[in-house]
């Protein structure tokens, strides 16, 4: 859940026609991985299968991959538009 800002960035990249093709491909792969992990979390697979993936550290690896992907697609977007509306 703490990945929410980065996940939102990935989803926004997918919906932007002006995003570079490579950025959309990276974002699509990361979102697909996150969606797969979310389905496993929803416990729609047998318990043994879930434990198998858990032992592979599927949450941690997907989180790391999504974080790296989100940081990669974040940069090119920043060249052409404001990064934030926050008044922090």
């Amino acid at each position, binding site marked *: *859940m703490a990945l*929410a800002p980065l996940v939102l960035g990935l989803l926004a990249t997918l919906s932007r026609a002006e995003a570079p093709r490579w950025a959309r491909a990276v974002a699509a792969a990361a979102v697909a991985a996150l969606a797969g992990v979310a389905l496993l*979390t929803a416990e729609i697979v047998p318990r043994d299968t879930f434990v198998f993936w858990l032992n592979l550290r599927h949450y941690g690896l997907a989180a*790391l991959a999504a*974080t790296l992907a989100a*940081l990669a697609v*974040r940069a090119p977007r920043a060249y052409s538009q404001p*990064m934030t509306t926050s008044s922090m």
Partner: protein
Amino acid sequence: MTPAPPAPNGLRALPGAGLLALLLVLALVNAAAVRVNDFRVFHTAGQRVLRGEALYRAEDAAYPFKYAPVVGLLLAPVGALPLRPAKLLWEIGSALALFAFLRQAARLAAPAPTRAANALAAVLLLPYLWHVFSLGQIDGFLLGAIALSDRWADRRPALSGLLWSLTVLTKPPYLVFVAAALVARQGRRLAALVAGLAAGLGLPALVWGWGQNLEVLHAWRAVLGRTTPELFCASSNQSFWAIGCRYLGPGLAGAAAGAAVGTLALAGATAWAVRAAPSGARDTVTSSCLGATALVSPLGW
């Protein structure tokens, strides 16, 4: 989701009433459920404080209270209520805190999220939201607190630092936000953090006396020391430490190597993104710190 006021680029949408309604429904459904696992830890801690009993006990086994003593004191109002009403209020509070966090997440995101992106994110997060509510976890409050702390960093640095210190006293990995504060040169916020930590560790002495407060702090450290190493490689742990155990070698050596490699990878990627887009440096580092909170934590939280 309802659209937020137009952003400078005219595209950014913040989560609105739709997400709040979803969170409240999840909260109410789970408030009515019998399952209270993690919440019972917080309720029991509040009750123990009110009764003058020891917070940290060996017999708590799989569900020990692992947070700073001051957190136990702050949970006293929760312990004053019967379990069911306390859980109802806890779940509603958690929903509001998560709503605050997800709105701040939309502010931090780049590129700017649309309404559709917010809706899709809510779908992706649904299993995790359910998890927080079904177990009655404290993480919704912590994410809400760190989000508000981030939002108020410039306008209300003292309050921002105090809120941040509460998250650290509950879960020390929130110290990773020191990186974000240093990048943004938030000196007053950092000073407030230090003051908040000092107050959080010292002020309970007003309740328990200095001698007993020291004993309680020792007991807290002992609980963390006893329970943390055995969970480095647990399958439920998904942190860099546990990934190291799985792929780089068993035991502390593999865990430490995983933590070092993972932290370096994350720090390197963040530095690259900051260098590529300096105008968004602050939000990039904050977003990265949020992700890092769980990944660099020895326990995966």
